[in-house]
């Protein structure tokens, strides 16, 4: 639906424009169309869309805004969602454009004059609160006496921040009779700075108002009052004895004192001094602070006296805030006073002053502060240290390190904190006190040396390894690794051989640190050389492991397998700390062949820790964690495995952790893991995931459980609780599977009987070659492929597979009966297997090799994610993308595309293979539309069968195929058009469409691809003309009308959300439209246009002989399907044929 109500200026522009430019532009539409299109677009998803939609909307001016306002329902009764987005968006988008802002504000003003629900009016008043100006004061003032709207309108007025608005509030206050209204108005005035209100407010206060009104009056006077109010407010404060009360007269009084301080400082000084003495008398330190703050701001105040008052009080609140209010450090007299006071035996006074000295970074007071470093009061002591720390500098450093010589257990940690934060070199200062310090001091020095990694202090640290003091020695051992360099290696080797077992571990760490600056080969050379000379070679395994080389690993594995006792343990410890992930295989060997529980436990821990700290994909982590879970003995280990599984983001892990939710000691971590995986991976959503999440929700018990349950609820409400991945292998038997007969092509050539007989035979063989062991599906090494009973089209698939060591390990997954996603042993270089698994092995034209090698070692589980949509395949192996959206060729007939539906097969290739965790998520695609026999006979042709848009051209961004439909998702409010590639003249066109509320589209016929089809061709309206916003349509705008020319009958659309069936017959000048079985239009365009068209517009394309058929988009979502056409070209064809016959 288009045009019609031009405003004059736009009409003028259009007259001079050529029709091509007019097409589909917002100004070319009627106001109600623009508004409807905009509503369909809101809320805007992007900034661009927002800007465009608001531009469109605002272009409709008052008329459009008024339409929106009239569409509003009373709040709380029916939704206003779209209109609220439209109106608030309008308000926000014009706020800073004066001309447009005042149009909007004027419209709100007009609307507020209409009879509307008060809730709607409150909403409109809030718009004026945002963009109103003095011009809207009159209308806002009208509501000031309305109990429901007095609040909103008075608030809108104060938002204007203008004298006139404030005056309107004041005028209303003078007229107000009810106390409730007075409270609204006074409270509003209290939020302004409108001094002129003072006499009225004071007048009200004088008349003994009720409590509620008194409260707001006092606050308001505190804010807007002048000197005149000082007296009354002081009286009110006195009445409460300056205590805090609900009416809070005291704070109103303080407020006004502050406000008038600039105008009448001497008066305020006197009043504030009175207040201070009252506060002192009442022993109210916070009030003393408030009075002092005011006094400090006055020029003639005796500040020293204020300071004296505060210090005399001995109250830490009063002192601290008085000190903070003024920087006395530039005032010699003040400083002197403070330092004298510091000596008084009050810990509160001392604390306040010490902190202040530090916060102000007062200079030359280090010795004064230092006196308090050994105070018996810990608060004072801490204040002194922190104060010094803040002042900083070399003199402070000297004082701080002296503290380390103390034996005071309180002071050393304080000193350490201060020294850690000390900005500068502390090494000299530390060494100067080291020898004179006690154990705690020495230990602290060593910790500081470690923290700053002082290589320069290596000797000091090293020497402590030979003293007769275990605690200092132990600390030194731990410090070594922070100070060593490669030069120290020989000395460290010696030290290692002399150290006791506890310290030896730290020395080993130091050696590794020192080795780390060398290359792996250099490391191996140095370490093996030393090992050869040493009788305690096991001490060097950790150094050997540090190199990370294959030769080091071989030595360690060999030693582990051949030695016993401490030596064996030392190699294990070295392996456990191995840096790279390849150590997982020897560790798995150890756990699998373990002879003792200790061995199982420590190797399980080592693998879990390795997986946790590694940077492997979630898929790889998940595989190894599932593997190691079978060896985990303790709840600690199992909980740890479950925790890490929760970060792997694999569907298999989600299912793997589920049963552990039933084990009391593991349920919380299993639930957390399941929740993390499910919530982070919406693609796993479905029936199974929903069941697990609902179970998780019941189990969760931790401080954040409320948040977590909320997150689960949100996830379940936004994602499907049906479908999802389905297990196609039950782990018990071959239900759902069968043997292989022939191939997809040969099978079609077999008779049903032949096929059945062959199948029986194949099934018998399959049972022999495919076994189930421990829930895994094993191909024994001889026989044929195993196939799903079911045929699949588009799907995602998860499958774990394992090649067993042996001769030529090889396998594969057939998709839709077609070989194959390749699986093989990468060691088989002779057949090119070094490229890795996961490629489309049989492709000839398209890529057949994987993008990278992502295989794990033969004998370990691997995992595939496979997706096939149409003929395109994507494969992830162990979490790595190896096949990226590659066309899979038809191996059985290279000239055919891959079959649309076929079975999944597990390939049999003569070696032992295991499969498990086989899940498929089908991606449903509707059956393509087919013509009925009658239509086929009549000569109909399909224009859209649900699978492709090959017959169409134009805006392919907004129009997409989805679930067998063409759907328009307009990116702009004026949508876009989709045209048939062919042109049609006389035809029968049949299609189905589904509308959204207020939806608008159009069917263009006999139209060129450029220009506005309604004029350069013909447009048959497609419109939800039942929407409230279209109640005032012209007849020729109804659904089905030849737009602007012939009206259609209204009232035959199906309810929103149902499919409508429409037939359009265009034959010469007659157009006939049948909607859901009712003829809603049957007319002759030539006759209708005889005396000018109904819309009084020029329709230059009305009598086109032929043209494209098009969907003409607006702002709304509309779906189309099952589109077919029959052309009448019979006459022409006959003529031609006749001609030919004559020739």
């Amino acid at each position, binding site marked *: 639906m288009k045009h019609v109500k031009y405003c004059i200026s736009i009409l003028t522009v259009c007259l001079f424009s050529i029709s091509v430019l007019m097409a589909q532009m917002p100004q070319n539409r009627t106001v109600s169309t623009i508004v409807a299109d905009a509503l369909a677009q809101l*809320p805007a998803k*992007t*900034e661009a869309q*927002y800007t465009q939609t608001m531009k469109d909307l605002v272009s409709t001016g008052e008329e459009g805004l008024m339409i929106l306002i009239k569409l509003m329902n009373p*709040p*709380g*009764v029916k*939704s206003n969602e779209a209109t609220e*987005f439209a*109106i608030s*968006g309008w308000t*926000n*988008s014009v*706020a*800073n454009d004066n001309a447009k802002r005042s149009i909007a504000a004027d419209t709100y003003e007009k609307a507020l004059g209409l009879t509307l629900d008060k*809730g709607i009016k*409150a909403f409109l008043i*809030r718009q004026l*609160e*945002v963009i109103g100006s003095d011009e809207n004061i009159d209308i806002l003032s009208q509501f000031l006496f309305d109990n429901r709207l007095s609040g909103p309108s*008075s*608030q809108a007025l104060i*938002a204007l921040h203008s004298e006139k608005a404030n005056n309107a509030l004041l005028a209303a206050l003078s007229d107000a009779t009810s106390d409730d209204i007075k*409270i609204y108005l*006074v*409270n509003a005035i209290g*939020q302004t700075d409108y001094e002129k209100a003072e006499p009225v407010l004071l007048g009200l206060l004088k008349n003994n108002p009720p409590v509620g009104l008194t409260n*707001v009056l006092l*606050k308001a006077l*505190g*804010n807007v009052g002048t000197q005149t109010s000082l007296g009354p407010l002081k009286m009110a404060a006195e009445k409460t004895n300056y205590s*805090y009360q609900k009416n*809070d007269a005291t*704070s109103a009084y303080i407020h006004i004192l502050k406000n008038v301080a600039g105008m009448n400082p001497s008066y305020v000084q006197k009043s504030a001094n009175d207040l201070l003495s009252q506060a002192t008398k009442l*022993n*109210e*330190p*916070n009030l003393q*602070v*408030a009075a002092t703050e005011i006094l400090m701001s006055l020029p003639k105040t005796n500040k020293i006296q204020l300071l004296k008052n505060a210090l005399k009080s001995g*109250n*830490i*609140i*009063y002192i*601290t*805030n008085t000190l903070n209010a003024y920087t006395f450090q530039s005032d010699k007299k003040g400083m002197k006073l403070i330092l004298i006071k510091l000596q008084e035996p009050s810990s509160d006074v001392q*604390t*306040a002053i010490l*902190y202040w000295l530090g916060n102000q970074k007062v200079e030359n007071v280090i010795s004064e502060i230092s006196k308090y470093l050994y105070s018996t009061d810990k608060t004072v002591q801490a204040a002194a240290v922190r104060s010094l*720390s*803040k002042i900083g500098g070399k003199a402070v450093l000297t004082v701080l390190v002296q503290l380390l010589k103390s034996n005071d257990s309180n002071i050393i940690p304080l000193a350490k904190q201060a020294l850690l*934060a*000390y*900005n500068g070199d502390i090494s000299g200062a530390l060494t100067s006190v080291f020898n004179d310090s006690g154990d705690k001091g020495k230990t602290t020095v060593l910790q500081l040396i470690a*923290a*700053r*990694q002082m290589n320069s202090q290596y000797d000091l640290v090293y020497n402590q390894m030979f003293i007769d003091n275990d605690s200092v020695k132990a600390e030194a051992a731990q410090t070594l690794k*922070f100070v060593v360099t490669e030069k120290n290696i020989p000395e460290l080797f010696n030290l290692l051989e002399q150290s006791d077992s506890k310290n030896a571990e730290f020395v080993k760490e130091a050696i590794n640190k020192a080795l780390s600056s060398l290359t792996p080969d250099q490391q191996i050379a140095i370490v093996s050389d030393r090992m050869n000379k040493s009788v305690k070679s096991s001490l060097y395994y950790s150094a050997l492991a540090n190199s990370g080389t294959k030769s080091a690993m071989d030595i360690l594995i060999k030693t582990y397998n051949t030695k016993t006792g401490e030596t064996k343990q030392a190699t294990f410890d070295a392996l456990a700390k191995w840096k790279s992930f390849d150590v997982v295989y020897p560790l798995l060997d150890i756990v699998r062949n373990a002879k003792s529980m200790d061995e199982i436990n420590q190797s399980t821990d080592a693998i879990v820790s390795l997986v946790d700290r590694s940077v492997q994909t979630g898929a790889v982590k998940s595989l190894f964690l599932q593997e190691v879970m079978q060896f985990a003995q303790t709840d600690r280990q199992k909980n740890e495995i479950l925790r890490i599984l929760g970060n792997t983001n694999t569907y298999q892990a989600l299912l793997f952790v589920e049963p552990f939710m039933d084990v009391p000691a593991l349920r919380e971590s299993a639930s957390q893991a399941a929740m993390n995986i499910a919530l982070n991976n919406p693609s796993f959503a479905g029936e199974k995931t929903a069941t697990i999440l609902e179970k998780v929700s019941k189990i969760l018990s931790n401080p954040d459980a409320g948040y977590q349950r*909320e*997150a689960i609820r949100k996830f379940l409400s936004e994602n499907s609780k049906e479908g999802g991945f389905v297990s196609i292998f039950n782990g018990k038997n071959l239900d759902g599977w069968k043997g292989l007969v022939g191939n997809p092509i040969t099978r079609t050539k077999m008779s049903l009987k032949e096929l059945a007989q062959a199948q029986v035979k194949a099934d018998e063989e399959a049972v022999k070659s495919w076994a189930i062991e421990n829930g895994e599906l094993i191909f024994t090494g001889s026989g044929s492929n195993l196939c799903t009973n079911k045929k699949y089209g588009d799907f995602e698939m998860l499958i774990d597979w394992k090649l067993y060591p042996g001769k030529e390990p090889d396998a594969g997954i057939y998709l839709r009966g077609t070989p194959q996603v390749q699986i093989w042993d990468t060691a088989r270089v002779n057949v090119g297997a070094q490229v890795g698994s996961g490629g489309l092995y049989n492709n000839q034209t398209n890529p057949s090799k994987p993008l990278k090698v992502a295989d794990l070692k033969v004998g370990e589980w691997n995992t595939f994610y496979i997706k096939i949509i149409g003929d395109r395949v994507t494969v992830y192996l162990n979490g790595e993308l190896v096949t990226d959206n590659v066309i899979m060729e038809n191996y059985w007939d290279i000239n055919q595309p891959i079959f649309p539906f076929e079975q999944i097969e597990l390939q049999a290739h003569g070696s032992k293979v295991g499969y498990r965790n086989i899940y498929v998520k089908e991606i449903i695609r509707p059956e393509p539309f087919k013509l009925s026999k009658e239509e086929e006979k009549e000569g109909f042709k399909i224009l859209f069968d649900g699978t492709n848009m090959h017959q169409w051209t134009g805006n392919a961004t907004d129009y997409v195929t989805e679930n067998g439909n063409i759907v328009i998702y307009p990116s702009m409010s004026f949508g876009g058009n989709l045209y048939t590639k062919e042109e049609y003249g006389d035809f029968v066109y049949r299609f189905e469409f589904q509308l959204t509320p207020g939806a608008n589209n159009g069917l263009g016929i006999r139209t060129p691809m450029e220009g506005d089809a309604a004029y350069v061709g013909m447009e048959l309206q497609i419109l939800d003309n039942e929407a409230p916003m279209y109640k005032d349509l012209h007849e020729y705008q109804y659904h089905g009308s030849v737009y602007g020319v012939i009206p259609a009958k209204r009232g035959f659309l199906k309810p929103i959300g149902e499919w409508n069936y429409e037939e359009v017959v265009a034959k010469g000048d007659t157009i006939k439209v049948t909607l859901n079985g009712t003829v809603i239009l049957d007319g002759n365009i030539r006759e209708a246009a005889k005396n000018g068209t109904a819309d009084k517009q020029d329709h230059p394309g009305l009598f086109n002989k032929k043209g494209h058929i098009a969907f003409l988009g607006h702002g709304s979502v509309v779906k189309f399907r099952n589109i077919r056409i029959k052309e009448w070209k019979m006459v022409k064809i006959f003529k031609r044929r006749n001609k030919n016959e004559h020739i």
Partner: protein
Amino acid sequence: MTTRRHFLKTVGALSLFTIVPRSVLGRGFIAPSDQLTKGIIGVGGMGRNHIYYDGTRVVAMCDVDKNHLTQAAALVKDKINLYSDFRDLILDKNVDIVHIATPPHWHGIMSVEAAKAGKDIFCEKPMTRTIGEGKRLMEAIQQNGNIFRLNTWFRFKDPFYGLGTPVKPLKKLIQSGMLGWPLKVTISKQTGFDWKFFWIGKNYLESQPVPKELDYDMWLGPAPYKPYNVHRVHQNFRGYWDYDAGGLGDMGQHYIDPVQYLLGKDDDSPIKVEVDAPQQHPDAVGTWQSITYTYKDGCQIVLWGGDYGKPDTPYIAGPKGNVYKNFVCDIPDWEKKLAGYPEPAVQNTDFIECVHTRQKFALNEVNGYHSATIVNMGAVALRLNRTLNYDPIKQEFINDAEANRLLNQPMRAPWNIN
């Protein structure tokens, strides 16, 4: 007077068994730490955690929902005072510290009132829901000399949420200058931050009868009157602009405040905020893709909503190096190099000690105001769907009258913050 405190200190055995509120000793005279008392306003959700915060004993509670009050009171063994009007709790002489765990639209008024009554304050995040209220709160604390603590703690402890590192070593690295300047910090799900996007509002709430246990008028307080619906109140309030700002309001200060500390912007504000977000409903808070803040010196804070953004984006990006999740830094040999630098200055992280010594808590009304301002600037930009420029000195938006009207939102009678 000092002798009285001294007396109490020496008779420790007696004081162990008696709760002596500070007010009994005279304000400013400090009882041993186990004797500080608290009153909690808002005990529906978060407020109940405040019962268990260490170092103080709960002596009073207040809620406008009678059910909440009864349920929360049952969690405490001792007999305590129960109120429905927060001002009565503030007036309670037994209360030393007022805890505020209401929806954010009350934080400003309640903090200011408590400050005027001379109470110390322990307030939930976000500090306030407008910039203007934050400013007023800061003034009130200054004027009355109270101790104020905001309840988020990542600037001084814990590896905050999924980042995998506490803030201290990051601060040390930044302070060392090894990353260069200016820095860009990206806060997103990729680094473990979860904006809790389920705190979004519904665009339509039908009118429902107010339950009899709830004083809805008092619950709304200064906020505009809107018909009652259960989704408006209690946990769901976070989804409505009148009371909060969704995940940005609820979680924003948790994530932003430590970054403000890291960047050393505790007394500064950004000069620009840009948003990339769908249009926001005037009442209900929606989601957003990103919010970008820029400081005068070029430092930036980027917030990424939901799954937006790339996983390999550094948490902190500087011209000389980057830092990723779990403290992965791409400067060669950075640990060794960093060790030579001093640790960040010690922060006052013991609230009880701060109440005793009257020293500002690590996260107080001043730096809390600035990080709340970052949150609130973002909320204003989201609501208006546009880029805003800000003047940190005048503390107002530049050339945007509408945005400035959102600095101080008019309050419904009889409420006013002054």
